Every structure is written in structure tokens, then in C-alpha cells.
């Protein structure tokens, strides 16, 4: 409920007395934004923990696997090539979102297709993700090089992860995918625990490892693709949320899966509050803020892993 414009905790009495101006700010801006923060954070948290679980790599996340970069390329393609903001026929946000979404799914498709030839070896998939992400990044720069200034600034603006970008319908779509996914993965948490013992042990417990990997990658990528398509690139939440949970409650996926969703939601909500208030009245896109904090944390995790 906290923000840069006009409402703080002292105004709680106005909330109780249904003050009209405050209710509009709350209902039209703060609540949808907080809801978006929780859902996007939760989706990225789940996406991260599932990718890390099936790829058995603590550095896996939508961001490190290139899904986010692919989304940015899709959006740039819509803005620069399809001229989505100049189109008279189609809603510009809709077209940009669709393109970002399709590009994210293409990225996932390439990773999975590549995985087929490497028998889904986890380390190969991570490296494939990094390479594909870099290719999409180069593609985005290529498009920007030939675009005019207005389109370039529109593309760059789009890539800022910003929770104000989407509206309530986007949050609802995300919720419809997120909640069944949390339930689905929670019910098969033990398969992720079994994978920690090694592929052979997992297969000997009756788990089809390749099928699990495909289902998990598709669903988690769908979640992050939706988040990127609706709200832009919000890095590091998917990477960091599961690590924080593991530090607090251990490694069993019975706890790590649901709590990563919750910690992702809390992290993004917290980051958004800070992003909205730190330079008040200026609102910094939360994606910039999460990367500022996430990158050093990422380096810290890397250094711990190296020890």
C-alpha cells in the first residue's frame, strides 16, 4: 500500500472511512500493482526453483537460461519491425506482449530441442540457455541498430521490468497459470528430491526423468514467459528466491517449492516498494532495482559455490 504519491500509513483512517480519492489510488493503482508484484514474484520464484531442481544447477533461472532475453527480443521485433506502436489495427501492448511471449517460448523450444540430442544433460541445457540468451541479446541489438530513435527508446523502455506495465487482466492470467502450477509441482515435490540423489536413483524410484524435465521446463518457462511478456524483464528474483528459502528451511522440495513462491512474491513486493519510494516522487522501474541487488547476490552465490 506504500507508495510515492499521497498515501502513507497515517492515512489508514481514510481507508476505513472510504475516502474517495484514497480509494481510487488504492483500488486503481496500489492494489493492482501489489497484486502484480506478488504474482510476478511468485511466478518467477516457482520458475526458478523448478528449473534449478530439474537441471540440478543452483544457477538456473529464467534470467540465466535466456528466456527473459528472448522476451526482450520478441518485444523489440514487435516495436521495430512490426511497428506495433504505430499500428492502427491492433492494440500495441497486445502485439508486443504476444511477440515477447512467442519469442520466450521459441527460446524454451530451442533449449528442449537441443536437450534431446544431449539426452537432457543438465549442464548442457544451462550452457545452451546461456548461448541462446546471448543470441537473442545480439538479435535485439541488431534490430535496435537499424531502428529510428523513437523505436529504440520504446524498446529500451519496454525492457525495463515495470509492474505498472500490465493491468489487472494480465495479473489474472498469470494467477490462472501460477496457482495450478504450484499445486502440481508441490504434489510431485519428492521427484525433485529424488533427482538430487542422481538420475539413476530417480529412475529406480519410478521417475521418468526426461519426461519430468520436459514438463518442468515447459511449465516454468511458460510462467516466466508470461511474466516477461506482461511486465518486462525482472531479473534475479527467480534465481535468488529459492536460495533464500534453502538457507532458511533446508533443501527438501516439500518446503522449497511453496516457500520459493512466497519468498519471490515478498521479494518483488519489497523491491517494488523501495523502487517506488527511494527516489520519490520518481518511480524507478523495479527491474532495475532487482538487478542492482540481485547481481551482487548472484556473485556472492557463485563465490560460495567455488569454495
Amino acid at each position: 500500500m506504500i507508495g510515492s504519491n499521497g498515501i502513507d500509513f497515517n492515512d489508514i483512517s481514510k481507508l476505513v472511512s472510504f475516502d474517495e480519492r484514497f480509494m481510487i489510488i488504492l483500488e486503481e493503482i496500489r492494489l493492482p500493482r501489489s497484486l502484480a508484484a506478488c504474482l510476478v514474484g511468485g511466478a518467477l520464484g516457482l520458475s526458478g526453483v523448478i528449473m534449478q531442481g530439474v537441471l540440478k544447477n543452483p544457477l538456473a533461472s529464467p534470467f540465466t537460461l535466456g528466456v527473459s532475453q528472448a522476451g526482450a527480443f520478441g518485444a523489440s521485433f514487435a516495436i521495430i519491425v512490426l511497428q506495433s506502436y504505430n499500428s492502427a489495427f491492433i492494440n500495441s501492448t497486445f502485439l508486443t506482449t504476444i511477440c515477447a511471449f512467442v519469442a520466450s517460448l521459441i527460446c524454451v523450444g530451442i533449449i528442449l530441442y537441443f536437450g534431446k540430442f544431449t539426452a537432457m544433460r543438465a549442464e548442457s541445457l544451462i550452457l545452451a540457455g546461456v548461448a541462446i540468451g546471448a543470441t537473442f541479446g545480439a538479435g535485439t541489438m541488431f534490430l535496435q541498430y537499424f531502428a529510428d530513435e523513437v523505436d529504440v527508446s520504446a524498446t529500451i523502455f519496454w525492457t525495463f521490468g515495470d509492474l505498472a506495465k500490465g493491468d489487472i487482466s494480465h495479473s489474472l492470467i498469470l494467477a490462472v497459470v501460477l496457482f495450478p502450477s504450484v499445486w502440481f509441482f508441490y504434489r510431485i515435490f519428492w521427484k525433485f528430491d529424488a533427482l538430487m540423489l542422481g538420475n539413476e536413483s530417480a529412475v529406480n524410484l519410478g521417475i521418468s526423468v526426461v519426461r519430468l524435465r520436459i514438463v518442468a521446463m515447459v511449465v516454468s518457462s511458460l510462467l516466466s514467459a508470461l511474466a516477461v511478456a506482461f511486465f518486462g524483464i525482472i531479473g534475479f528474483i527467480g534465481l535468488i528466491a529459492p536460495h533464500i528459502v534453502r538457507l532458511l528451511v533446508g533443501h527438501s522440495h516439500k518446503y522449497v517449492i511453496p516457500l520459493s513462491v512466497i519468498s519471490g512474491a515478498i521479494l518483488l513486493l519489497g523491491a517494488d516498494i523501495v523502487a517506488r519510494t527511494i527516489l520519490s516522487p520518481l518511480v524507478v522501474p523495479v527491474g532495475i532495482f532487482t538487478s542492482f541487488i540481485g547481481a551482487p547476490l548472484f556473485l556472492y552465490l557463485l563465490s560460495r559455490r567455488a569454495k
Partner: protein
Amino acid sequence: MTFEVKNLSCTIENKTIIEDINFTIRSGELNIVIGANGAGKSTLLKAIARVQESKGIFLLDDDNIASYGISKIAKTVSLMPQFNNNVHLSVKEILELGRRPYSGFTLLKEDYEMINLIVEELELDRFLDRSMNTLSGGERQKVYLAKSLIQNPKILLLDEPIAHLDPKNQQEILEIVKNITIKKNLITIVVLHDLQSALHYGDNLLFLKNGKLLKHSVVKDIKSEDLEELYDIKCKIFKNEGHHFVLMGHRHTNDGEVGHNH
């Protein structure tokens, strides 16, 4: 129960790892696979557990388990791999995994009964809440063995269960395996490198060389020449009051003496 392996072959990346292996073993006996590194011992176990694709027939009595689905296999064959990852799960969480092929997410009363039974048998009570990565090598092997038994298999496959363990722990693990094989009437196959233990605890030995079954014999019939042929080194078995002692000599090649073993 009998377990018959017929015409088993396994090829990995166009390389034949094991070729046309045939043998029949009985339940309640400890069968030990010996052979040099790369002979195909682990692959044999993985093929039986269907962790590794292979061609062949596996008859458990008259039932071909090669036609079982992956989840039925998990309830019939339990494999303890050679390399177990060091995981940050509690002992209890590991043991519960053994019952997941039966009950999935929600474990039932009978699942916990089975877990408690094995925990008691292997004296794991005091470890239950400890994290696996805080246990010693011997304790960890015991937990993985317990998990394999909790799967309640008919066929128990152990790939080098005593590697890197001290003599006391080696003895403890093999005694548990021997006793439980008899008590539960299991079909047990264990891969071992320690010939002394193999001859002491095993009922039958399977000699694997270059992917082929060189010999399948009861322990008391094993001769020094069999081991020499298997490992290409000088070897002598002494028998004293029912115990076997193995002395490994110098290894000779065409170039002369290149080293010696124990």
C-alpha cells in the same frame, strides 16, 4: 524364487559394454560380481534395474520383468548406485523416498511401518533427523542401503557398497546385506572389488571380463587360476578353517615385471 538373465547385451554409444550374458541365481543367496574396472559390472546392475537400456530377458520365476513399466520396476528391483550424491536432505526424507513409488505424495500407515522396521533393523533411529551431509561415509551407505530395502524389492542390487569404507564398516554393511538376503529371501547381487570379502560373504561369484561372463560358480569351487584369468595377475587362494585368503602376486607382461599388488 529364481532369477534368470538371458541373452543380455548392452551397447552405449556404439560400444558394446556387455555381451550375451546368461545366468540363473536363487533367492536367499548372496551373489557377488567381480571383475576389473570397465568389465561391465555396473552396467550389468543398471541393465537389470532398467536404468540403462539393454537387450535381454530377465525372468523372475517365470515373469519377464523386462516388460514391466518403470513404476512396477521400482517396486521389484532396487539399485544402490556406486556414486551417491552428497545431498542436503535429512535421513528421514531419504528413507521416505523409498516409499514414494508406492504412495506418492501422501505416505500411508503401512509405509511408515516399513520405514520403522528397517530403521530398527539397521539401527538408524538416532540419525533420523540428521542431514545426510553431516554423516560419515559408513553411516551414509547404511542410509542408502536402508532406502533400497524400504523400497521392498524382490531383487536387491548393490554397486560397490563398501568402497571407501574402513574394515569395520565394510564388515557391518556386508553382514547386514547377508542377513537381510536370507531373512527376506531376496535375490541379491553385489558388485565388489575386495576379493577377501567376496569370498568370505558370497555364496556365488560371477566373473565378468570385457563384458562377458567368464565364470559363474559357488565360492567353494573357486580356484586360484580363475582369479588369475580374470585379472591377469598372479593369484593364490588359501583355505583355512572354512575361510579364504587371497594373495595377489606380481603382475607380468611381455615386457617383464611392471608392478605389484597386495
